[in-house]
């Protein structure tokens, strides 16, 4: 079990401040093997690459009102080849999607059917991206059972859910 240190930069962001130095100083204080749990008012995509360079995998999860919780987990060299669980795996170096689906105006559950059909056609390690109206809650268990990884969240206006699915490599 990884031990996580909480860093909540939402107050800094709401006040219009720059949280980068706070995150980096928290990072410097981590014990070996410790991870970082970050709370932010948006999905901090640029940070993912920085953290990957420092040896941290990330898993992002949307909270209410467009806020995000991101777990940065140190990647131990010994476990690199073992497949982590879906939804919590490291998302470094995901290739550009080979398929892009716009499922926003399809009747439920058609978006789920199309994503699963397209996912089945992906080559090992390939990704697809899909736009949806809602969080596809019934799709996640199906993806998990089939060994796919995914990353998803609402756009800042809350109207579109963006999902990226990666086939097992």
């Amino acid at each position, binding site marked *: 079990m990884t031990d996580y240190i909480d860093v909540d930069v939402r107050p800094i962001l709401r006040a219009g401040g720059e949280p980068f130095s706070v995150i980096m100083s928290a990072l410097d204080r981590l014990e070996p093997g410790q991870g970082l749990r970050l709370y932010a008012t948006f999905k901090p995509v640029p940070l993912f690459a920085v953290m990957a360079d420092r040896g941290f995998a990330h898993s992002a999860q949307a909270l209410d009102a467009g806020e995000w919780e991101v777990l940065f987990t140190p990647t131990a060299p010994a476990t690199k080849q073992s497949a982590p669980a879906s939804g919590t795996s490291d998302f470094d170096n995901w290739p550009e999607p080979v398929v892009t689906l716009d499922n926003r*105006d399809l009747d439920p*559950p058609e978006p789920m*059917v199309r994503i699963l059909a397209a996912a089945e056609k992906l080559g090992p390690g390939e990704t697809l991206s899909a736009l949806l109206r809602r969080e596809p809650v019934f799709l*996640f268990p199906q993806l998990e059972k089939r060994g796919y990884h995914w990353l998803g969240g609402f756009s800042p206006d809350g109207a579109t859910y963006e999902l990226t699915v990666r086939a097992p490599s």
Partner: protein
Amino acid sequence: MIGASISRWTMSYFAAALAWLFVALALMVAGLGFPAVHLASPDTLVLVHVVCIGWLSLAMCGALFQFVPVLVARPLFSEKWALPALGLLTAGLVSLLAGFLGLGGRLPAWLWLLPLGAILLAGGFGLVVVDLGMTAWLRPVGPARFVLVGLASLCATVAFGAMFAFTHAGWAGSIGETILANGVPLHAIAGLGGWLTLTAMGVSYRLLSMFMLSPDVDDRKSNMTLAAGALAIAVAVVGGIVAIWLVSGLNVVLSIAAVLGLATAALYGRDLIGIFSGRKRRQLELNTRMAVLSFVSLAAAAFLGVVLVLTGAFAAHVGAFTFLAVFGWLSGLVLAKLYKIVAFLTWLEAYGPVMGRTPTPRVQDLVAEARASKWFVIYYVAVWFGTLTLVAGQPSAFRAAAAMMTIGLAGIVREVIRTRRLADVAGSLRLPNGACTPCLLCARA
């Protein structure tokens, strides 16, 4: 895990609920309870609790065990509690009904059965409230807030009911006697208004916007509706207890609660119009069309209530008002949504594992809407006819209406069973490699 899996026992709850609804209709056809006898008679208590606990509460609990995890995109707090809760609720209801029958002289007067039933029901509902409450609490947005207020109202309802049960057995002293003598309307308002109506409203927001491809109702609007509804229940329950304590009569409190209740129905109507006018899907499915008839019934019940109050006839016709609210609005909505939920869950269970790998039917291929719609129409027409017979004071015509409701219900249940058995799916698509027919009464783990 993020996401929601298929609730294992939702079908079991639905099956038990429908069985109790048949029991209730059989009692009405046989002329037991209201309107043949007074509203407060033991026979009517049997009928009312079969409908409200056996049918509506079990169906609502079954739906919520599936729906709350979907609302909050998290698994249920404990999947393991659903089945014991169903057992406790069923045993508690049977004990309570036997106690009522004893109260009416139809069985030996073992009045200890009433508190025993209350304890079992409190245990069952307690498991449901903690399980659903702990799940909804994780992400209390939009519709989940309605569920939380509904669960709080359920607690109030059970507390009143338990107090009444202990009083009937002679174990609650003079305070119990006072509350039993005056508090029955509060018990009914908390149960029908708070638990069943507010929860049904919350669930309907999400189901309707999901199936009609409509944007979710703005949180500020739905919060206003919920605030009016929660205030109505709070005024009725808290104000009612204070009024009973001060021996000042319930009229003022119930009038304020009624105005707030009317405001809640109006705000809900405004929210529904927003969902329907913002929809991207023009062609409505049967479940939505039939839900509209339940909304019409809610509006009609509100209208009937206002007319009865203005003409000073509410007390004489409270049975007709309640009948329309319970069977037109609540039962109509539950039946319409149950028809869709069963189809969707059956589809997901049967074809989810092979989806994308082989051609699978659509959800709509599991149902035969043209055939099912006539049973719903028969049911609703019978309910409206039944309401008129109650207003007109025609108990034998009411029994005919109940018989017609039974026919409509039997038709609907037959359709639901056919859906569950994949009986309407074209042969070539029915069971592709790796798919199997779901079990009728529960989902496979």
